[in-house]
């Protein structure tokens, strides 16, 4: 499986950005136009093209596929790394998040209702983790697919003779 260049690239792109997207505070880069999710797809395509010497038959089809695979892998990685960091106390847990939100609210910052509700309910960690997994796979998948396409647009050197 690791000999398949598409899977190998998707593992690298999704794995690297999946871990980055799980790191406390750094994960907020995703608020910048889903930069980390898109970045996973771009990185995967970059590694794929680096190993390809023959011209690609369907570059954008490959880019979308590699991006989507990187997204699914990234979604799984980011959820589980996030959960492990939270369990080890290296990332803010729900109580910490609730405290931060309460402080922000006291400073006059308007907090979206669902964020406040999610952090004040008890025994919801498991349910939220399951929903986060599905959500991360879907969202990471969609945006990394776009990242894969953007990566192909940036890094793919076209065979001019085919024009």
């Amino acid at each position: 499986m690791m000999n398949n260049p598409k899977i190998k690239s998707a593992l690298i792109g999704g794995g690297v950005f999946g871990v980055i997207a799980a790191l406390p505070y750094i994960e907020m880069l995703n608020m910048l136009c889903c930069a980390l999710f898109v970045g996973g797809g771009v990185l995967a395509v970059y590694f794929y093209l680096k190993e390809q010497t023959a011209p690609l038959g369907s570059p954008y089809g490959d880019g979308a596929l590699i991006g989507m695979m990187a997204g699914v892998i990234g979604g799984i990685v980011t959820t589980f790394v996030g959960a492990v960091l939270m369990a080890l106390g290296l990332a803010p847990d729900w109580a910490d998040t609730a405290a931060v939100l309460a402080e922000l609210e006291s400073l006059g910052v308007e907090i979206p209702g669902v964020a406040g509700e999610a952090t004040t309910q008890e025994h919801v960690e498991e349910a939220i983790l399951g929903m986060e997994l599905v959500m991360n796979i879907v969202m990471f998948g969609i945006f990394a697919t776009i990242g894969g396409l953007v990566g192909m647009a940036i890094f793919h050197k076209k065979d001019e003779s085919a024009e």
Partner: protein
Amino acid sequence: MEQLPRVAERSPKHLFHASMRSPWAYGLLLACLGWLALVFAPALFAAAGWPHADMLRWLFHPVCHQIPARSFHPLGEPLAACARCTGMYVGFTLGVAAWPQLPRLAAKLAKRPRWILVFMVPLFVDVMFETGAPIRFATGLVAAFPCALLPLMAIADLTAARTPTGDDP
């Protein structure tokens, strides 16, 4: 019957025409419209008094900060995504709908796809400044519109790869 050239010999224009005939292109447009509906739905549902509108808003929390002050408020309720993200989603959807109607322009951009990065410059400049929601919406829209060509090219690629060329055994 006119024989299509092989995939590697097809120009971006050929490829693009192939994508316009693909049901996948219409599927992509439907998916984009569905996505936009999810962005607008929480505001409409909340205005209608539906108590679980925030659950829909939660769908977008991994990809948007959802700060109400940075979002549009149709009917007095914030959308599920900020103004910039809403602009990107609207721009992408418009692109998916519009690029098939602009084949010459699409072929030009498909020949030099790195130009899509130029359209992202206003967005990156805007990120560094404190601007209003309309400008954030506009820069998001401008950045995403050309990107919509890329999935259409992917559909074109995949459609062309599956189209018999006539010289296959």
